């Protein structure tokens, strides 16, 4: 009998104090763990004045780290766009054996600690590794050099684009592509005129996330880079080195660039989400 009397929906029943309490907890948590550190980053970065801030960024080692990070991103992001589109296309639109295995493998970098991913590359390409002696004999440095950093970053970031596209392409199905084909479009025309326009915002979102992670990756890169100043230090590694040298203001100056990237990513992300829901 008691069950027969239907309870009102939870949202209606929750008293005002509970709603306020929950919201407050969330906001305080956010302020403490996100906003406060962000303020600290910029406060520390500017503690010795604007001049010192820009000097820290113009330091040759810092510039080298920025250049290396940008180079890595310039290689990794396009590579992952190509890989992500191919993987998402085949998973969403074809039937083939090993499909579920591929889907699982794409998630692997999310499941594995970045340090382990870095170590794997050291074991495969390092001086004592499987291909190490062969590579050293031909004077192709991978570990403690740029190729290793690119490889490790690619591995850590490859799920972003594919993960974003797979559900989108699965939801859209293949009928539009089939239509294009019956209308006489070639494979390329179908991709450029039908598939790509349908996935462009999802793809852009994936690229933004992939880019942010590629710039900020620390663990895997740290293992393979060897921390050679001015040569194999990316921005996150350079921040760590400056910090260990007790150059707090310098460390935070470089860190502030990464923080700005994070803020820009958030803005782009909300813009894309607004585009995806706001227009037909």
């Amino acid at each position, binding site marked *: 009998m008691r069950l027969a009397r239907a309870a009102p929906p939870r949202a209606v029943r929750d008293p005002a104090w509970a709603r306020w309490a929950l919201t407050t907890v969330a906001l305080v948590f956010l302020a403490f763990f996100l906003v406060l550190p962000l303020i600290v980053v910029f406060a520390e970065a500017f503690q010795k004045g604007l001049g010192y801030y820009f000097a820290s960024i113009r330091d040759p080692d810092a510039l080298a780290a920025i250049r290396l990070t940008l180079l890595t991103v310039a290689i990794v992001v396009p590579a992952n766009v190509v890989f992500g589109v191919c993987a998402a296309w085949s998973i969403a639109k074809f039937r083939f054996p090993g499909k579920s295995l591929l889907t699982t493998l794409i998630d692997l970098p999310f499941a594995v600690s970045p340090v382990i991913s870095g170590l794997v590359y050291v074991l495969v390409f390092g001086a004592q590794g499987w291909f190490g002696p062969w590579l050293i004999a031909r004077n192709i440095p991978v570990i403690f050099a740029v190729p290793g950093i690119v490889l490790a970053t690619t591995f850590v970031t490859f799920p972003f684009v594919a993960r974003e596209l797979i559900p989108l392409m699965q939801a859209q199905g293949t009928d*539009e592509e*089939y*239509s*294009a*084909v*019956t*209308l006489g*479009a070639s494979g390329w025309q179908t991709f450029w005129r039908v598939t790509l326009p349908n996935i462009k915002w999802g793809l852009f979102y994936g690229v933004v996330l992939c880019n942010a992670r590629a710039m900020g990756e620390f663990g895997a890169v740290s293992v393979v880079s060897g921390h050679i100043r001015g040569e194999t230090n990316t921005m996150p590694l350079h921040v760590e080195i400056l910090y260990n040298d007790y150059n707090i203001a310098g460390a935070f100056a470089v860190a502030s660039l990464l923080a700005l990237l994070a803020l820009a990513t958030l803005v782009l992300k909300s813009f894309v989400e607004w585009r995806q829901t706001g227009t*037909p």
Partner: protein
Amino acid sequence: MSIEALGIRKKFGAYTALDGVDLNVPQGKLVALLGPSGSGKTTLLRIIAGLEFPDPGSGRVLFHGDDVTDLPAGKRRVGFVFQHYALFRHMSVFENVAFGLRVRRRRDRPSPASISERAHRLLELVQLDGLAGRYPSQLSGGERQRVALARALAVEPKVLLLDEPFGALDARVRKDLRRWLRRFHDEIQLTTIFVTHDQEEALEIADEVVIMNKAHVEQVGTPQQVYDRPASPFVYQFLGNVNILRAPTLAGARSRRGEQGVEAPNGQIYVRPHDIEVTPHDAGGTGISAIVRHIHAAGPHARLLLEQVQTREHVEAEISRSELAELKLQVNVLVRLRLRQTHSFDEDYAI
């Protein structure tokens, strides 16, 4: 252009979608592929379009006598309309219709002015010229279906293939649109095949109906032929309501004895509800005695549920409302049933 399919087989893994199917569609006809879901009709349509291919070595598809079995869809000059429209969602209605012309190689491509002119003429043809600037998401189901049709016609196809063209529409729009399609076909005279699971739709608008069941073609004929002379129990049951009676109970029940000739070897007689004549019990003395169990009088005809006195089996009869009024029927009244037209089939058949 005529379409022929010869000995088509298609398996998906262990599932047989088509098992040696032949089809012959004469030039300029509107043909329905009719069957329950899973009967293979959509697969056959997609094979004709070139979106699927028959199992290697199994059969051929011929357009106007030319073998097109190995040609890809884009080279067959077919217009294909998908059940869920498959319009390009990021393109306007106009761009959708112009697509097939825009993707042609440069030397075959019409000038922008003539593309535009042709797209607008097609939109006029499907009565949508005012909506050229809209996006698919802003159109109703019926409008989307007509855009899909205009888009398919833009490439001047030699045959038109429609996959459940009205399947996703509500009942009213569906009726309007199928009559429109019939008139439209009479106007453009393009060989057309459409797939449907709705027998009313197929019988109403097709020149010829191809009835499919379990990867086979059961019967081919005009709507009247397949309805009046069904080739198998399946066809009989698929095309309308049916009563199955046991022959021994029918002594003297048939109005015109011997017209349907042979007694059924398996003892089963098929009769449609509207072929059952209901008479007062005291009138003649021949016919099946039955008791009225339920009268359903809402609608154009009255449907009676009757119970045979001898076998206690139920029979459904359909009579006009004026007959119902004349007979003054009521529930639990005893009546006699006579069968105007019956069918029997040689083979054993289970529903």
